[in-house]
C-alpha cells in the first residue's frame, strides 16, 4: 500500500540566510546552555569573515574579521564557554571570546599546513581539551593540548605508506565505561582515499581502510554505534565501523548520482545523515539503514558544508553565498 502513495515533494528550506557576499565554507551551530535562549549559527566565508547569525531574527548580529581576507575553512564553538574557534587559510587558528557581546581574538595558533584540511577538537566538558590540526609535513597531523597549546604529538604515517595529505580529521574517544582511562582516537581521511584510525596515546595506526578512489573530503563518526561515514570527491559514500580492538571495517557503500561530497554530518540524535554535494544538492539519508530520504535541490552552486543543531535543525552553506536552514524529520 505504502508504495502506491506517491512520495511527497521535497520540502523547501525553513529560511535562507543571505549576506555573506562570498561563498560559505564552514558552519557551526552554537552549542551549550546559552543556545536555548539565543540560538546562533556561525558561518565562515571565502572572504575571511565569520558571521554570527541569530536564528530568531534571521539576521547577522556580528561579523568577525580576523583572517585578513583569507578564506575561513572551519568554525567550531567550544562547549564550556562562549568561545569560538576559526581556522583560516592565512594559517591562523583563532580563538574568539564572545561572552557578553565581546568579539575579540583571545588567542591564536600559527598553523603550518597550507592545505584545506579542517581541524578537529575533543572537549569533554573539562577545562582542558584536545585539538587536532594538520601538521608541518604535508602528511602529518599535529595534536595539541589546549588551552596551553602544548604539542602532544605528531602523527606521521610510516615512510612507505604515502597516503598523501590529510583531508579531514575526526577526534573522538572510547566511552569511559569501556576503558578506565579515556583513550583519544583520531580518524583521518587522506588524499589517497583511505581512512585511517590513529591511537593518539600510542601514536600508531590502529587500522587502515582504502575505501575511496578519490581524496576523502569529509567524515563524521557516531561514537554510540561505533560507525562512521566518509564522502570523497568520487561518487560513493562509504559507511564503516570500528569493531573490536579498534579495527576499521567497511559496512557498505552507497552510490550517488553525481560525484563530489564536500562534507558529511550526522544529526546529534544519530537518526539521519546529511551530505553536502558538489552537485548543488544536499542529500539526506537514514543513518541506520542508509536509505536515501531526500535530495534537497535549493542551491545554485556547490554546497560546501552542512551542520546539524542539537534541536535537529540542518544548515547548509554553499558557494552561491547562501545558507539554507532546513527542518527535516524534526523530533516531536
Amino acid at each position, binding site marked *: 500500500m505504502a508504495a502506491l502513495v506517491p*512520495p*511527497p515533494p521535497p520540502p523547501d528550506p525553513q529560511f535562507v540566510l543571505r549576506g555573506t557576499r562570498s561563498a560559505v565554507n564552514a558552519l557551526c551551530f552554537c552549542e551549550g546552555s546559552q543556545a536555548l535562549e539565543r540560538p546562533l549559527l556561525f558561518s565562515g566565508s571565502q572572504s575571511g569573515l565569520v558571521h554570527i547569525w541569530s536564528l530568531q531574527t534571521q539576521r547577522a548580529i556580528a561579523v568577525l574579521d580576523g583572517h585578513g581576507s583569507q578564506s575561513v575553512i572551519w568554525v567550531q564553538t567550544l562547549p564550556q564557554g562562549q568561545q569560538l574557534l576559526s581556522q583560516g587559510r592565512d594559517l591562523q587558528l583563532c580563538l574568539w571570546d564572545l561572552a557578553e557581546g565581546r568579539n575579540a581574538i583571545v588567542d591564536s595558533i600559527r598553523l603550518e599546513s597550507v592545505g584545506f584540511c579542517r581541524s578537529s577538537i575533543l572537549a569533554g566538558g573539562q577545562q582542558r581539551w584536545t585539538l587536532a590540526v594538520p601538521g608541518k609535513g604535508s602528511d602529518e597531523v599535529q595534536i595539541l593540548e589546549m588551552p596551553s597549546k602544548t604539542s602532544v604529538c605528531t602523527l606521521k604515517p610510516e615512510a612507505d605508506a604515502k597516503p598523501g595529505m590529510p583531508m579531514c580529521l575526526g577526534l573522538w574517544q572510547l566511552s569511559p565505561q569501556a576503558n578506565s582511562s579515556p583513550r583519544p582516537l583520531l580518524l583521518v581521511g587522506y588524499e589517497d582515499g583511505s581512512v585511517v584510525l590513529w591511537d593518539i596515546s600510542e601514536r600508531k595506526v590502529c587500522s587502515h581502510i582504502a575505501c575511496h578512489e578519490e581524496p576523502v573530503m569529509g567524515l563524521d563518526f557516531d561514537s554510540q554505534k561505533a560507525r562512521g561515514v566518509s564522502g570523497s570527491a568520487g561518487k560513493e559514500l562509504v559507511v564503516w565501523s570500528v569493531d573490536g580492538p579498534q579495527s576499521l571495517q567497511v559496512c557498505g557503500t552507497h552510490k550517488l548520482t*553525481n560525484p563530489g561530497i564536500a562534507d558529511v554530518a550526522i544529526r546529534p540524535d544519530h537518526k539521519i545523515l546529511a551530505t553536502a554535494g558538489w552537485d548543488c544538492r544536499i542529500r539526506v539519508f537514514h543513518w541506520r539503514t542508509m536509505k536515501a*530520504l531526500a535530495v534537497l535541490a535549493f542551491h545554485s552552486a556547490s554546497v560546501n558544508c552542512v551542520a546539524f543543531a542539537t534541536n535537529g535543525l540542518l544548515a547548509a552553506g554553499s558557494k552561491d553565498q547562501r545558507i539554507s536552514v532546513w527542518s527535516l*524529520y524534526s523530533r516531536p
Partner: protein
Amino acid sequence: MDPAPSAVRLSVQEAIHTLSSSEDAGHILTTLGSVRRYLGEAEDPALAGEKKEFATVHFSAFLRCLISKLSQEWLELSPDGQLEQLWESFFLEGPADQAFLVLMEGVEGSAGPSFRLMRMAQLLATFLSKGRMAALMEEQCRPQMKAGFPLLQETLLSKVVGLPDHLGNRLQRDNLAQFFPQNYFPVLGKEILQALQVVVNSLRGGLDCSVSFVSRVLGKVCIQGRQKEILSVLVPQLTVLTQDSGLWQRVCWRLAEQVPDQAMEAVLTGFVEAASGPEVLSRLLGNLVVKNKKAQFVMTQKFLFLQYRLTTPMLKSLLGYLAMDSQRRPLLIQALKELLETWGSSSSVRHAPLAQQRYISTAILICLVHLGEPELQDIRDELLAGMMEGVKCHLDSSLTPVRHLGMIVAEVISSRIHPEGPPLKFQYEDSELSREMLALVAPAPEGDCSSEEGGPPLAPAVTKAPAEMSVHGGVSSAQPPGSDSELDSDDEFIPYDMSGDTELKSSKAPLYIRDCMEALAVSEDVQRWEAALQALEGLVYRNPESTREVSVELVKILLHLEDRTSLARFGALRQRALVAVTVTDPARVAEYLTSQFYALNYSLQQRMDILDVLTLSAQELSRPGRLRRPSQHGSPGSGSQCSPTQAVSQPGSATAPNWRVVVEERIKSKTRRFSKGLPQRELSSSPNEFSSVAGHFFFPLTRHFDRPVVTFDLLGDDQLVLGRLTHTLGSLMYLAVNTTVAVPMGKALMEFIWVLRFHADTYVRRGLLSAVSSVLLSVPAERLLGDLPDELLEARSWLADVAEKDADDGCRELAVKALLLLERIRGRLLPSS
C-alpha cells in the same frame, strides 16, 4: 430354411393385423408380448435364427405399423401405461439403426405439430439419452456384408447429422432443447466416444472393425460448421484416452484418415483449434499429413498461405505437430521455405493485409524455433537469400508494423543461421507487436518442463530463509545494548520524492540567439553544443524580435544539424527548436522550408523533418489562445515544464501550484457569494494566426511533386515521403479551417489527390483519404458545392470503390469516414435547397 421364416412372417403379419384392428387392450398387449420375444428381451426368447430374421426383415415394417397406430386414445387403451411402455421398448431395444430411421421417417412424415409428432420427438430424446446412438454407430462399425449397405449408411449418416435440422423444421417452436445443435452435437460427441470404446474393446478381442462411419459422421458434422461443439467434447477425452493406449491412438489415427476428402479441411481445422498442443495433435492425428494428400495440402498450404485465421497457439501446435516426427519434418522445412518465399515476395508485402503478413512472420518464427542447427545449416543459403530479399521489401514498406516485422524476422533468422557471428540488430521501438513476436523465439520452457523446473527452486528458498533469519539476528545482537535503534520504526522517515535527482551537466548555456547559432554551427565544444540546443527553444520564444532577424539562417543551421553526441533527446530538441523558429517567423521560414523540400541535396529524413515541422508549426499557429503561452516558456532548456498543466501533474515541481490551491480554497471558504454567476474564465478569442500564412505553408508543397530530381523521386522510390507529404497536406488543410484561403487550398488538394488516387502504396492512399476528409471538413459546404461539384462527384465514386475493395483495413475505414462526411454535407445542404 423355408418354414422357419414363414413362421416369423406369419406371426408378425398376424400381430400387425391385430394391432390395426383390435381395440382390446389385453389382446394387443399379448400380441406385442409375443412379438417382443424376437427382440430377445422376454422370458422365453425365440431362436437365434428367428431373431435375426425378425431384425433384418420385419422389424422396420412392424415399427412403421406401431407408429401408424400411435394416438392418444390408442395408448390409453391400457390405463396403467403398460402399453405405452411396451410400445417404447420396441424402439429402444430393437436394432438401433432401423428404430432411428423409422422414427426419423415418422417425424418427417408428419404434417405439422400433433400428439404423434410430439410423442415421437420425446421418444427420440429418450433414444438419445439411453445411448442408443452409440449402439447405432457401433453397429455400423461392424464388418457388414449386406447388399444395399452403403445406401443405408448414407441415409443414416444424413439423418444422424441432420437431426437438429429435421426436428427443428418439423417442430418449429415446440422443439425440444435436446435437439438444439449446441446441445445435440456434444451429446453426439459423447456417443461417438462410446462407440469408439466398443470398437477398441472388440479390437482387443480380436474382432475386425471399421471406424469409417464414425469418420464420416465426424466429417459431415464438421462440414456443417459444428467442429467446436463436437470436438470440444471429443478432443479432450481422446487426449486422455490416447495418452497411454497405443490401441486408442491407432483408432484415432484411423478415424482421422477415413474422413472423406471434402471434409478433411473442416475436421483438421477443428482438431487444430481444439488440441491443446503439438503433442496432443501428434497423438490424435499420427502421420496423417504424410499419408493423406488432402490433409497435407490443408495443413501445409491452406492453413499457412491461404488463410490467416489460426491464433498463435494454434499455429504453434500445428507447426509443432509437423516438427514432432522425423517423417513429418521435411514438410516443416518445406513449409519454412515456402513461407520465406512468400515473406520475401515484394508483391505480397505490398498487397497482403497486415494481419496476414503478421501471420506469415509468426509462422516463420515458430518454424525457426522448431528446426535444429543441422537442418538450418542445410538450407542456410536459401534462408539467407529469402531473408535478404524479404528484408529489403519490408524495409521499403511505408507501414511501420510491416517494417518492424521485417526487422524482427530478419534478426531471428540471422541469429539462427549465424549463431556465432555478430548479431544483426535493428533499431525499433518496443511495441506490443515486437514483444509478442520476440516472445515466440524466446527460449520459453515447454509447459511440462517448466512445471518440473518449478519444483526445485522452492526447496532452497525454504532452506535459505532460516539462514537469513540467523544472520539478521546476529546483526541485531552485535548492536550495542541500550541502543534504541531497533525499537524505533522507519515510519517517521518517509522518503521525499527524489525524481529530481538527475546527473548534472556542467556547461554554460548561451543566453543570446546569435551565440546559440554560433555554438550550433561551429562550436567544437560538445557540451556547449548540447547546452545551446537545449536552450534554443526557450530563447527563441523569449526573443521573437531577434529571432526574426536571423530566422532563415537559424533554420538552415538546424535543418543541417546532425546528432554529434548521441544526445538522448536530440530529435525532439531539434524539432522543437525548428517549430519555435517557424512559429515566430512563419512566412519567411515556411517559404524557405517548402523551397528546400524539393531541393537537391537533402536526405529523405531531412525532407520528412521539414514536413513534420511545417505541420507542427501550423498546429501551433492555429491553436486558439496561443498568444498567452510564450510567458510560460521562461525556463530555458526545461522542455517538460513549458506547459502549466504538465507542471501540475508532476509531483516534483508542484510546490508552487500547491500553495495556490491552498490559498484559493481558503479564500473560497471565507467568501460568501450571493449568486453564482457564469463561470469566470471564458475562452478569450484571438485571431487564427495560421490564416495569413497558410498559403506559404501549403501551395509550394503541392507544386513540384511530379518532377523528379536526381536524389529525390516522389512518384518513384520515395513513396514513404510521398505518404508523409499527403498526410502533411491533409493536416495543413484541416488546420486552415475557417480561413479564406481554405477554398483555393481545397481545390488544389483535390487536384493533387485526383492524380494520385490509384497509388499502389497503402500509406500514400491512407494519406489521400484523410486529406479528402480534411477538405470536406475545412472547406465550407456551400463553397464545396459551388466550386468543386465535379470533383466531389468523382471523389464520391472513388471513395465508394475504395470502401468496398481496398485491401487495407485502414484505407477502407478512412474511405467510409469520408463518405459519411460527404453524406452529412449533403444532408445539411439538401433541406435548405
